């Protein structure tokens, strides 16, 4: 697979730490919801680093949008979130991945579970589902630290309705006007949500390793088939 040159066409601030980058890539063949790309940065002396970033946008043929959360000690994300301007170019390899992908031909109800920036590939699925006005049920449960860390907050609210719904739960929100759910995604919550489905519910879980493994274990304890629980772990070095 070749490295492609992508041109930044827009930078969209999402939170204090996160930026979405719209990229135009000549000869882009389109992507599937849930896929990622590798980004390579090369210094003048030839030193290069690669990192994987999930695609946040629904499949389109001419453009992709990545959301990057800055990790202060990272080698790549500080540059991508603060050092890039419209017209700048970066190297991209992709689209990558076929395991953590939601297809429009899918007929089963879908549960998306995102922890932190793990919501990004799930957002591609959610946006795609809305764009298609898909007839299956899709439910997103998004665990963020605080209200100011929530990615795509207004858009998620706007896309919810009909066959889609969103539940945001905050794990470290201090005393505030937040009237939504607080606390981790726990067994009680998952039990209530999966109860009507267990036989055919398809799950996608993405986030930090402890979040993914704890949540996947709970779903399997609740009776879901392991093959129906698809996971993608973001590691401490994965998004740097």
């Amino acid at each position: 697979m070749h490295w492609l040159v992508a041109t930044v066409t827009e930078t969209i601030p999402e939170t204090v730490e996160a930026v979405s980058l719209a990229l135009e890539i000549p000869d882009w063949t389109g992507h599937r919801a849930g896929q990622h790309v590798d980004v390579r940065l090369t210094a003048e002396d030839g030193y290069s680093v690669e990192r994987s970033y999930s695609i946040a946008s629904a499949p389109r043929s001419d453009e992709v949008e990545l959301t990057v959360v800055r990790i202060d000690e990272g080698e790549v994300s500080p540059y991508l979130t603060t050092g890039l301007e419209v017209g700048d170019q970066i190297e991209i390899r992709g689209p990558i991945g076929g395991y953590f992908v939601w297809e429009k031909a899918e007929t089963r109800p879908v549960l998306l579970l995102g922890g932190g920036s793990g919501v990004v590939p799930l957002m591609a699925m959610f946006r795609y589902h809305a764009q298609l006005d898909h007839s299956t049920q899709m439910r997103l449960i998004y665990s963020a630290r605080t209200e100011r860390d929530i990615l795509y907050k207004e858009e998620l609210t706007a896309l919810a309705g009909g066959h889609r719904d969103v539940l945001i739960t905050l794990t470290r929100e201090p005393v505030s006007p937040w009237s939504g759910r607080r606390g981790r995604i726990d067994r009680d919550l998952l039990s209530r949500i999966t109860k009507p489905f267990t036989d055919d519910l398809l799950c996608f879980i993405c986030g930090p390793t402890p979040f993914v493994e704890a949540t996947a274990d709970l779903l399997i304890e609740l009776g879901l088939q392991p093959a129906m629980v698809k996971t993608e772990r973001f590691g401490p070095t994965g998004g740097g």
Partner: protein
Amino acid sequence: MDTARLDGNVAAGILADIFQPEMTIAITTCANCGAVRPLGELFAYVRAPGVVLRCPTCEAALLRLVQTPGRTWLDLRGTSVLQMELAGPEDADDSNPRSEMS
């Protein structure tokens, strides 16, 4: 819990340099315990000079990969079978065959 543990999805880009089929959906058989699962579900350890994919059942190493500029070493002795989905002749030139499906 080992927070350095990722999964096979993280190796997809490097494997796409070597293999033509999409490798996260390739089905692996562990040479140690016989467990069968998609490569995307294997445990991945990347904080090393290379990538190691391990069996979630028995933790044996199925794949070890090291890259230097211009050269790749791939050790697959822990994988007894690797099944890959090949593109059909009608879409062999399409690098993203499913994107256009109904």
